[in-house]
């Protein structure tokens, strides 16, 4: 029996890279999924960020809203939310130690290629802060524009993504 989770595109970094763009979202599927693992910055305290792409180029308009519950192992959880940003913060400040595995995420993306609806996403991730504290976000975000999204771009707010990080885009068969 054929499977229902179909790999669309992927990138396993062979060298430190400033950003990763995965495209291939189209009308074939309604729901897409990104997996990220071993994503580590080469600069201490960098935040992993994200934008949707249109025709392969990032949408930099101030139309991103997000809301997360930020879980952490050391103290009280917090709410993290923003409106009308020009990007999405997927994480807070991360450690840059290449021996601890950095950040790992699952994102589901909805209605991306439907030009009459906003593009929505859910996020769950886990990562380490510079002091070794474990943190993670559980929540969602939206691009409040009725545009045709074809992928996503991942980048840190400072420095590069270390070699070895893996990004995969899947489609969920209808």
């Amino acid at each position, binding site marked *: 029996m*054929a*499977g*229902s*989770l*179909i*790999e669309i595109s992927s990138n396993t970094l062979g060298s430190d890279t400033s950003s990763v763009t995965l495209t291939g979202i189209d009308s074939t599927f309604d729901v897409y999924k990104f*997996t990220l*693992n*071993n994503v580590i910055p080469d600069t201490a305290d960098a935040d992993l960020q994200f934008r949707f792409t249109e025709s392969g180029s990032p949408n930099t308009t101030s139309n991103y809203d997000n809301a997360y*519950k930020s*879980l*952490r*192992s*050391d*103290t*009280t*959880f917090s709410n993290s939310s923003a409106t009308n940003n020009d990007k999405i913060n997927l994480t807070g400040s991360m450690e840059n130690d*290449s*021996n*601890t*595995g950095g950040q*790992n995420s*699952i994102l589901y993306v909805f209605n991306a290629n439907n030009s009459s609806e906003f593009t929505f996403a859910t996020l*769950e*991730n*886990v*990562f*380490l802060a510079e002091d*070794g504290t*474990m*943190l*993670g976000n*559980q929540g969602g975000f939206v691009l409040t524009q009725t545009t045709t999204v074809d992928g996503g771009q991942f980048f840190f707010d400072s420095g590069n993504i270390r070699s070895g990080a*893996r990004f*995969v885009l*899947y489609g969920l*068969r209808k």
Partner: protein
Amino acid sequence: MVGSLEFIKSATGSSVSSFSITDCFTDKYDVYKVVADDIVTSTEAFLELRFINSSGTIITTSDYDFADLFLKANTTFVERKVTNDDSIFDFNLSIGSVSGGAGNTIAYIFNPTNASSYTFLTFQAGSVYDDSGTFGFGQKGIGVLKQASDITGLHFLTNTGTVTSTISVYGVK
């Protein structure tokens, strides 16, 4: 078209205090999905998770951190966070001894066989618990084993009583 979610193996525990899924992680995948549905316990119990390394040893050292939010249907949500524990204690909580009672957890495991990386997980659950009555609740959680070890398996144990469940592992290619 070949799919990218591949069933690897499952294991069943029947009225046991612990059971393992061995050799379910390999270098073929970086991300795994663990499906634990219909977790039926003999009394209200946590189902804890420990990892098994490539030597076949269940890791019981105090190198586990976890944090999760209990989204309770009947009362205030509860935050739980622990560092330096000897398991992911909160992998599931349920009171399976009541009629219809069961626990259900979906987890993603990241980088288990990468001996240069810690092993991370995210998890979420929908179960029932006892609070002077049986109520539904959800869990949203994260965890890490702070060891850069080659992890090849999973070990589940109850904090009290026994468990009956079949737990399956899938590779996300």
